[in-house]
Each structure stands twice: as structure tokens, then as C-alpha cells.
């Protein structure tokens, strides 16, 4: 259960939002909506703990995320605007090194299955810089399939994906939420997923 009370965000001189409350429980997902520049990404970064809020508090299962620190980060998977994918490494290396960074060993078959699921079969040993933007994005999304985390925070996950990949990703999110997970995501598209809440930022 992720709850936030009285969040405010100030970027430079501008106040993006104030007194923002939200609560997402297991089996639910939250669609953060708003126009460009209203603070969707800032909100997600604050929730993930990348930047501190100007005011307000975020609690994970009743405990402030600031004090939980590592215990909260273990439960969290954050995918931001940038790929977090190394251009010089192959998709397989990217995936397995990211898993090791998370402190979990990833066996080869699991990694290859995840990559194959996102249509990257046969490209496991090709450096990522030779892949298209959409394929790079797919490498990143393959992490969703291998990393065990309760809370997914995804910033514009559908960007640069084709119709098939959008379906696959939606399927992955539905599965995650059905298994008691929580997902928070931003997107300008309408997302055809059940059990969703909508939060409008800057409205």
C-alpha cells in the first residue's frame, strides 16, 4: 500500500502541485494524467524517492519511505524517461548486470526467455546501439518480466512501442496487478486495463 499525503512539488520558481494526496493498494494501478509540464514525471520521481518533496510525506505500508530506505527500494521498480540501457552492452548483458545490481542473480534461461518474450530473440548478443529505439525500450521492459518487485513506477512506458509491444506490456501490467502488485504509470494514451484509478495532476 503506497500512500502520499499533502505532497507539493516546486521546480525552480514554479509550484507544480500542492496538497496532493494519493493511495494505491495491492491489486490496483494508478494512471497519472496531465498535460505536458504539469509535473507527472516530478511526481513519479518524488514517489520513487529520487527527489524529496517540497512538503508532504510518502508512506509504504504505513512506514515513511525515507526511514524504510533499502527495504522500500527492494520492493520498487522504477523505469524513467531514459532507458538505463547501456548502448555498448548486449541486451543479455544489460539484463543480467541490472539484476546483479538489484542483488539478485539472474540465470541465463530466465533472461533469454524474458528477452524472447519481448521479441528480441536472436538479438541477445548484438550491442544495444545497433537496435532501434523501440527495441531499446523493449530491452528495458524485459526487466519488468525478470525483476521481482511489488511496486512498479513507470514513466511513459508505452513510448516508442509498436502495437504488439503495447499489448505485451499491458498484459504484463495486468498480470502484475492481478498478483497483488501495484503499478503507477503515466501515459497520454488511454490504457485499457481493468481496476485502474485516475489521478489528474495540475488540473
Amino acid at each position, binding site marked *: 500500500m503506497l500512500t502520499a499525503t499533502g505532497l507539493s512539488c516546486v521546480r525552480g520558481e514554479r509550484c507544480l502541485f500542492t496538497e496532493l494526496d494519493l493511495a494505491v493498494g495491492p491489486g490496483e494501478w494508478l494512471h497519472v494524467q496531465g498535460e505536458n509540464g504539469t509535473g507527472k514525471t516530478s511526481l513519479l520521481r518524488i514517489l520513487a*524517492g*529520487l*527527489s524529496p518533496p517540497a512538503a508532504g510525506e510518502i508512506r509504504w505500508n504505513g512506514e515513511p519511505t525515507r526511514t524504510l530506505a533499502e527495504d522500500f527500494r527492494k520492493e520498487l521498480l*522504477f523505469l524513467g524517461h531514459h532507458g*538505463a540501457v547501456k548502448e*555498448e552492452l548486449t541486451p543479455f548483458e544489460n539484463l543480467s548486470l541490472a539484476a*546483479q*545490481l538489484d*542483488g539478485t542473480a539472474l540465470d541465463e534461461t530466465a533472461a533469454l526467455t524474458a528477452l524472447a518474450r519481448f521479441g528480441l530473440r536472436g538479438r541477445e548478443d548484438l550491442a544495444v546501439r545497433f537496435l532501434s529505439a523501440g527495441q531499446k525500450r523493449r530491452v528495458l521492459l524485459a526487466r519488468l518480466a525478470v525483476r521481482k518487485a511489488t511496486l512498479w513506477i513507470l514513466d511513459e512506458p508505452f513510448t516508442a512501442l509498436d502495437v504488439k509491444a503495447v499489448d505485451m506490456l499491458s498484459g504484463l501490467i495486468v498480470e502484475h496487478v492481478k498478483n497483488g502488485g501495484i503499478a503507477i504509470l503515466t501515459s497520454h494514451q488511454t490504457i485499457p486495463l481493468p481496476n485502474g484509478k485516475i489521478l489528474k495532476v495540475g488540473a
Partner: protein
Amino acid sequence: MNAVIAIIRRDLLLAMRRKSEVLTALFFFIIVVSLFPLGIGPESTLLKKIAPGILWVAALLATMLGLARLFAPDHADGTLEQMVLAPAPLGLLVTGKIIAHWISTGLPLVLLAPVLGLQFDLEADALGILVVALLLGTPLLSLIGAIGAALTLGVRGGGVLLSLLVLPLYVPALIFGAGAVEAHISGLGAGGHLSLLAALLALAVFFAPWATTAALRIALE
């Protein structure tokens, strides 16, 4: 601990794939050091006297070359965000990155220095002291440099700022590092200089990762 090893492995793998960056610093070091004997001429007493200083200054500048790229690529592609959000403490991961930086830039300098030192007619035992001094000094350069690289992360024209920030902090390493070899040649013994260099290194090992982590957090906000 596994995460630290993963970071070191990843950064060394990246250094292998981006060979030009590592080789640029290395060739810079070789060329700068080799130009001095050519320019000054075969005057062995003078060469012997200036050798430690030149080798150290060249090592310092060679380390500076790649420093701006220590965190910048990770910052640009979002890997740094993932490092902050990884379950392992950021300080440990940063230490891993610094170790990888030293292995890919500092260690080759240490290994090359005795070969280049031959051009200056240094004796075998002086070369030995030079290697020990560099072995203690180059990790210190990586550690201090990481603080500067983190502080100037995302700043426009950060390269110049980085030099202004880091080079003054390198001065103690330069004085004691070059001083160790000079003291040995003049018969005073290098023990004192080396001990001070080791003390500086111990201090930096404790404080540099912590300062770098704080600077990185500010850069990401």
C-alpha cells in the same frame, strides 16, 4: 557486495568496449613523458632531477582526461537513477565505480611508469619507489577526482570547472608522490613521503565515496 562486483564488472566491460577513451589517456601519458627527454636533450643529471615531477604531472593530467566521463554517461542514460534506487547503498556502488576507474586508468599508468622512467636514466631502486608512490597515489587521484566529477555533473562547461576544482586538491598527492622519489635519490629515504601519501589515501577512502554520494544525490534532484 555482489552489487559492487557487478558495478566493477560492468564498468570494466564498458571500458573494454570503449577502448579509445582508456587508450587516449594512456597515450597522452606516454607521449607527454617521452617528449621531455627529447626536448631537453641527453643531460642525465638534469633528467634524473626532473623525472619524478614530470611523471607525476603527466599521471595527474592523464587521470583528469577521463574524469568528466566518470558519471556523465550514467547520468545521461538513466543508469545513475537505477543505482540510487538499487537496494544496495549508493556509497558502495560509487566505491565500485571508483575502483573500476582506477583499474582502467590508474593501474596502466603505474605499470607503464617504470618503463617510461628508464628514459630519464632513473636507477632501478628509484623506479621501485616511483611505482610504490604511484600505487598509493593513483587511487587517491581517482577518489578525489570522483568528488569533482560528481559535483560538476550536469553543469554546462563542467570540464573546465572540474579541472579548477580538482587540480588544487591533487597538489598534496603531487608533492608527496614526486617528493618520495626525489628524497630517495638524494639519499634521505622515501619512507616519510610514502607514509604521508598512504595516510592521505586512507583518509580519502573513508571520505571521498561519502562526499561523492552526497554530490550525486544533489545532481539528480
